[in-house]
């Protein structure tokens, strides 16, 4: 109750100040446009301040939505066609599946077989390296070049530092467990 009275008093004082500043502006014959005050000239009624001069949450909302619009336009994500290539590298990276995935351990991915050597399947799942999996015993003939398979990723690059070495030794391969063929939903 006390807080409400205080708020009302502040509002009234605010209205008085607004009218005084408005009159002084007119007296001097100049108008310094500072946002809301440009709407004041000619209006000397005792209107509630909530309509003319926003305060509290409303003012904060206006301020932040304005800032957000400016940021969006500057970043180039607003007002451009959906198919445009204007995104920065940082944005592309942030929104890429690799980064969105997080750690690769135990994540399920879909890969495509691009090479087969006897029973070894070379599967490319979109990472830097491909993975090599053994042809499974069940449905073995269905795994051909171009087939899409499900994998459980273990590591994106198999590297290890051996004793006495300056840099890691890399196998130029990723590590994944083959879960099976990609099952398409029956139509």
């Amino acid at each position, binding site marked *: 109750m006390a807080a409400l009275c205080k708020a009302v008093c502040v509002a009234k004082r605010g209205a008085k100040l607004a009218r005084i500043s408005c009159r002084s502006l007119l007296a001097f014959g100049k108008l310094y446009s500072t946002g809301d005050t440009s709407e004041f000239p000619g209006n000397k009624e005792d209107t509630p301040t909530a309509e003319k001069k926003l305060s509290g949450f409303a003012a904060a909302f206006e301020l932040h939505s304005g800032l957000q619009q400016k940021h969006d336009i500057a970043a180039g994500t607003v007002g451009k066609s959906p198919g445009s*290539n204007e*995104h920065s*590298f*940082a944005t*592309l*990276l942030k929104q*890429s599946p*690799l*980064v969105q995935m*997080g*750690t*690769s351990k135990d994540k399920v991915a879909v890969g495509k077989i*691009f090479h087969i050597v006897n029973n070894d399947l070379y599967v*490319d799942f*979109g*990472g*830097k*390296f*491909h993975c090599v999996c053994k042809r499974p015993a069940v449905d073995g003939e269905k795994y051909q070049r171009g087939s899409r398979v499900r994998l459980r990723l273990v590591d*994106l*690059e198999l*590297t290890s*530092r051996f004793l006495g070495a300056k*840099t*890691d*030794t*890399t196998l*130029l391969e990723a590590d994944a467990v083959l879960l099976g063929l990609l099952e398409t939903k029956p139509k």
Partner: protein
Amino acid sequence: MAVGLLKKVGSDKILTEPLKHPDFFHLSELFSLKDLFDARVHLGHKIGCRHRLMEQYLFGCRLEQDILDLDQTMEHLQQALNFTAHVAYRRGIILFVSRNRQFTHLIESMARDCGEYAHCRYWQGGLLTNANVQYGKGVRLPDLIVFLSTLNNVFQQHVAVRDAAKMNIPTVGIVDSNCNPSLLTYPVPGNDDSGPAVELYCKLFRMTINRAKDKRRQMEILYGLKSQND
């Protein structure tokens, strides 16, 4: 004699005209940041494989995997392709070198398609430095060597990088996060292990060289006709 003089003036124009423009062959329209990103050019090796001199080209490291800065790659690639185009325009010999067995066939067929040369097999020690003895006197060495991977099969720097520097042959090279970029004239930080990335580089080099050669033919016709008419 007047015809000879006119021809000389024409040929000077052919050679000097491209040097007046920063992007005479309009190579910036051949690739965009999105193309490089979709081809996985920004993916590097694990942090333990990093070469100290590649740190300047890295955007950062995400979960132990280095990420190359594609903004820098765009600039370097533009300069490298521009240089390649100028060399091809002036009828230079371009040699593509890579010891990555996965892409040997792709690189050799690309070199054949643009009328240039490739060496993706075992590199004999004195190929550049001992060429006069190994191939006979008066052998013409390449005017540009393009490395699609600067490492050999044991993860050491390819001998040709050092030898080209010894023989004053300019080099363009795709350097991954585990490579040494210091001896290359035009290093291009980028992924050299993924299929889509190498296919993209091959496509770009092939288009650049074909464009440059076509432009040369056009300019010869243009300035050849002009000097005849004058």
